[in-house]
């Protein structure tokens, strides 16, 4: 196990050259970059999986490959087909160059549901790393495959996987704006809201059940909170003037928003039901794009109080702001990494809007994209990847970049402009 982890750590941050178009997905993901070694893993087809429609093992393999840390090996048809109950012939798998192996099986249950069992092996150390059994309906194949991939990823890397998380984004198709929710791999896209007026700034509640966003359906920006399971929407901030930039406190009890009700654009705090409004900033500048730190102690925000837009932070209870970014004349859209150690933001770098990372401990700045119209960076909940919006060939697309800048993926929708991505939290 330790050897496996050590070997894998050596692969962290690799770059790969691989195209993995996902059949049937509205968003297709393309991984770009240059080749480098990844951990070879064999995911043997689960006997019985044909009954489930989309191949559960092919989804597991695609998930692992998309992380940039694994290479899925071709497994030839074996007879008898091995399952999680088989005795593993480690020498044989080693000769197929596998460092890790997933075996499993699918069985129909009398109640019409299915049971998936699987087990993960360290081939080098010749040891089982554990396994799980799930029962599922045919509609839950993708969700189950993502959970298996999360288990494998966590056992082999020591970090939680994000394959079961969801992403939100806005698609503009003609004169329609659609707030879409999809699996982290871009599959299973479902519209939570469709409107003839713009929708911007979606923000997930910490429990992943709600989205706050700004809708222009009333001819001005108004902040809503939208419950994803029942579609119920509530107006959280509709004051005189503009209402925008919602951000959840880590405990989900409060929202920071930008309001112009007292003139200018200033940051206010209110309860998640819209009550108890309190002003936090007091400047003649634009103060906007608030974001809580993970410990709830700070609010990072964009302000042009110093003459150009820069990132500042202030105590979440309000108080004197401190400037955070100093390099460059345009630094906006602060987003803290889940561990709170890194700040991602958009910087104007030689005429290009790009994603920059600021190491908050040593103040080092690194630009991690090579596109030129980047917006709205959003960390995966394990901090490993950053989702962002950019423009390629005149069209808005989503892109993902590893937080060391070395693995890049592009997600594109067949028709329409995609923008405003937000990566959802871990959910149970």
């Amino acid at each position, binding site marked *: 196990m330790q050897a496996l982890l050590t070997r894998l750590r050596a692969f962290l941050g690799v770059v790969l050259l691989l195209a993995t178009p996902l059949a049937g997905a509205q968003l297709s993901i393309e991984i770009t970059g240059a080749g480098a070694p990844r951990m070879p893993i064999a995911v043997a087809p689960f006997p019985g999986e044909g009954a489930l429609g989309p191949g559960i093992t092919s989804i597991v393999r695609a998930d692992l490959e998309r992380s940039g840390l694994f290479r899925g090996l071709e497994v030839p048809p074996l007879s008898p087909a091995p399952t999680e109950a088989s005795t593993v012939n480690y020498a044989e798998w080693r000769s197929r160059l596998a460092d890790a192996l997933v075996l499993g099986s699918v069985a129909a249950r009398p109640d019409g549901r299915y049971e998936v069992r699987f087990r993960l092996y360290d081939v080098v150390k010749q040891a089982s790393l554990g396994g799980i059994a799930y029962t599922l309906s045919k509609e839950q194949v993708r969700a189950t495959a993502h959970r298996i991939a999360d288990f494998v990823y966590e056992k082999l890397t020591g970090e939680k996987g994000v394959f079961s998380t969801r992403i939100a984004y806005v698609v503009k198709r003609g004169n329609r704006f659609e707030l879409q929710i999809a699996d982290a791999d871009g599959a299973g896209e479902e519209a939570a809201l469709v409107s003839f007026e*713009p929708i*911007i700034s979606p923000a997930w509640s910490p429990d992943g059940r709600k989205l706050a966003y700004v809708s222009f359906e009333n*001819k*001005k920006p108004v902040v809503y909170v939208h419950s994803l399971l029942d579609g119920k929407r509530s107006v959280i901030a509709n004051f005189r*003037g*503009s209402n925008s930039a919602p951000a959840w406190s880590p405990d989900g009890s409060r929202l920071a928003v*930008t309001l112009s009700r007292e003139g200018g654009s200033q940051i206010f705090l209110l309860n998640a039901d819209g009550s108890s409004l309190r002003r936090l900033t007091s400047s003649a500048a634009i103060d*906007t794009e608030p974001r809580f730190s993970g410990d709830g102690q700070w609010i990072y925000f964009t302000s042009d109080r110093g003459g150009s837009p820069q990132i500042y932070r202030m105590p979440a209870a309000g108080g004197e702001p401190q400037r955070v970014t100093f390099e460059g004349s345009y630094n906006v859209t602060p987003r803290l990494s889940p561990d709170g150690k890194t700040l991602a933001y958009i910087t104007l770098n030689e005429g290009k809007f790009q994603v920059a990372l600021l190491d908050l401990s040593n103040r080092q700045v690194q630009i991690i994209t090579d596109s030129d119209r980047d917006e709205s960076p959003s960390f995966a909940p394990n901090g490993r990847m950053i989702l962002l919006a950019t423009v390629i060939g005149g069209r808005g697309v989503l892109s993902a970049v590893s937080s060391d800048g070395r693995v890049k993926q592009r997600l594109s929708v067949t028709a329409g402009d995609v923008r405003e991505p937000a990566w959802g939290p871990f959910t149970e």
Partner: protein
Amino acid sequence: MRLVIIATLAAAAAAAGCATTPEQQPPAGVEERAAKPAAPAAVETKPIARVDLTSKPAPGNPLKDPNNILSRRSIYYDFDKFDIKDEFRSLIEAHAKYLRESPGAKMLIQGNADERGSREYNLGLGQRRADSVKRALTLLGAKENQIESVSLGEEKPVCAEHAEDCWAKNRRADMLYSGEY
């Protein structure tokens, strides 16, 4: 405002419905009339009064009269600027005078920005432009409660090309009166 109109229409519809309820109609029946020679009746036609919303506005509405400065509603800005340029002074003065003389008039100012950079920061830039127009109008005597200034940021561009010509058209504040938004 819209609610008031809907309520009025609903009331009118209800009243019209009442007038034709069966209980209030005269009893039905067939009337026999003797055929009597009579003087030929003159054919009378009454022209229908036409309301055409597609052509010129109702006379007398200065807001819609293309020859009146009040029909102009847009103020344009330089890159990253929100000060009102001299060429728009007379336009602002005309609207301030109108608001002063029509205390019941309400205005919505929508500020806009070009597409470059953060959407939320651009919302702030648009707000700053809308606020600058509101401030100028109130300094010239319009009442604060007559005017709401909001921002559409970069979300409602009138021009979609990714070039300066277009961006200049999108750096704009629009003045809209009640019923126009």
